[in-house]
């Protein structure tokens, strides 16, 4: 095992971890709001938020490229600020966030909806404020679903290939994540490298799922 073997693995986990942080920060409040309220245009917003789940990743990647590329509307704004996003590992984070977001959003919305509204109402009549209700009633009851969302979006971000390739490229030592490295190793006939990467990814992924599940089961009441 040398440095070039580890780089794609570390990059993949770094991208996936950072993506999950962003996804949770955006998805949790949004899911919470949309789970309990209705407003005009809600169906439209829901469809837009879920689109990246059903579209092929290359379509998402092409769309992102049009948006954040040097001539795209967002890309030009970033360019004026002296930032070039495309073909950096930040672009890989962006791709992973967009593609994995719907998994967190959908799980979190279902989790919040599964909390009986009367439990929150009961807490209100007991003189408790909304912040404490959220942390002491809603979150503990919704957390198995929230955890599912975190695990699913992390897994999706870790395995991201198509959209990442389009916006971050495949630059070894800079933007080459593990799925890309595996593909290009096989493509170049380097089955040894591919096998090592596959083993590392499989073992670590297994451990993550195994430990999260075990922790979840222990924390469960009854």
């Amino acid at each position, binding site marked *: 095992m040398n440095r070039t073997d580890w780089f794609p693995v570390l990059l993949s986990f770094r991208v996936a971890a950072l993506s999950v942080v962003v996804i949770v920060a955006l998805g949790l409040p949004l899911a919470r709001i949309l789970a309990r309220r209705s407003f005009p245009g809600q169906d439209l917003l829901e469809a837009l938020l879920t689109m990246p789940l059903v579209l092929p990743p290359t379509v998402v990647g092409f769309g992102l490229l049009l948006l954040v590329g040097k001539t795209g509307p967002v890309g030009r704004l970033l360019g004026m600020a002296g930032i070039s996003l495309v073909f950096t590992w930040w672009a890989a984070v962006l791709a992973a966030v967009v593609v994995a977001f719907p998994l967190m959003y959908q799980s979190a919305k279902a989790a919040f909806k599964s909390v009986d509204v009367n439990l929150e109402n009961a807490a*209100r009549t007991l003189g408790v404020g909304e912040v404490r209700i959220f942390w002491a009633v809603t979150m503990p009851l919704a957390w198995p679903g929230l955890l599912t969302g975190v695990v699913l979006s992390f897994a999706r971000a870790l395995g991201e290939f198509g959209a990442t390739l389009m916006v971050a490229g495949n630059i070894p030592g800079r933007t080459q994540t593990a799925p890309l490295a595996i593909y290009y190793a096989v493509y170049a006939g380097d089955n040894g490298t591919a096998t090592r990467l596959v083993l590392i990814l499989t073992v670590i992924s297994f451990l993550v799922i195994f430990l999260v599940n075990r922790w979840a089961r222990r924390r469960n009441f009854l």
Partner: protein
Amino acid sequence: MLEVKIQKKLPFFTLDVELRLGNEILGLWGASGAGKTTLLQCLAGLQKPTGGFIRLAGRTLYSHAEGINVPPRRRQVGYVFQDYALFPHLTVKNNVLFALNGNKPGPNGPDPTALLDALGVGHLVDRYPGQISGGEKQRVALARALAVQPRLLLLDEPFSALDTATKAKAFEGLKILHEEWGIPFVLVSHDEEDVTALGDVIVTLEKGRIRSTTVRRQPGEDHPAGS
């Protein structure tokens, strides 16, 4: 003293109710969908009426004209929910204590565990709601609702999950509790028997309107024999 005159527009009809209640038990009876739970939620502040006022013990809780709508956590209105809405992830004791953590009890406030003892469920403090019977849940829900020292107690279908024998005991328990607390109770049921067994005043609700009011006992009078 509870004074209510509210309107609330609902999808299929308008809830339009006028009530005056001393420290008696009001039995509110009506078919499902008559607006009973909506009325309770308006009293508790969980839903906002579209007009009128709610006054409890001299305090305005809601007034359309004055633009007042006190949030539920400041109303001191106890609410026993249908199916009790006990927090499934908290023990019986913590369910009752939950009320007090957000709202510090006065030095003479009731000890919540004493409330559980008085209701005959003091031995269940360390159990979770999933581990106790329907009758026990009902009493825990009562203890929790009373822990905030309410000035009004609302009970939404409190007997629907109980079998006949448990129900008879629960009737007696509720009457004793009402005498001890001396506050108005509003009891909602789709079952006429529950309402006639307990109500000092019985109001029948139909499509959001009061169809009939029967006074069975004036304030200060004893319960009529056989009730």
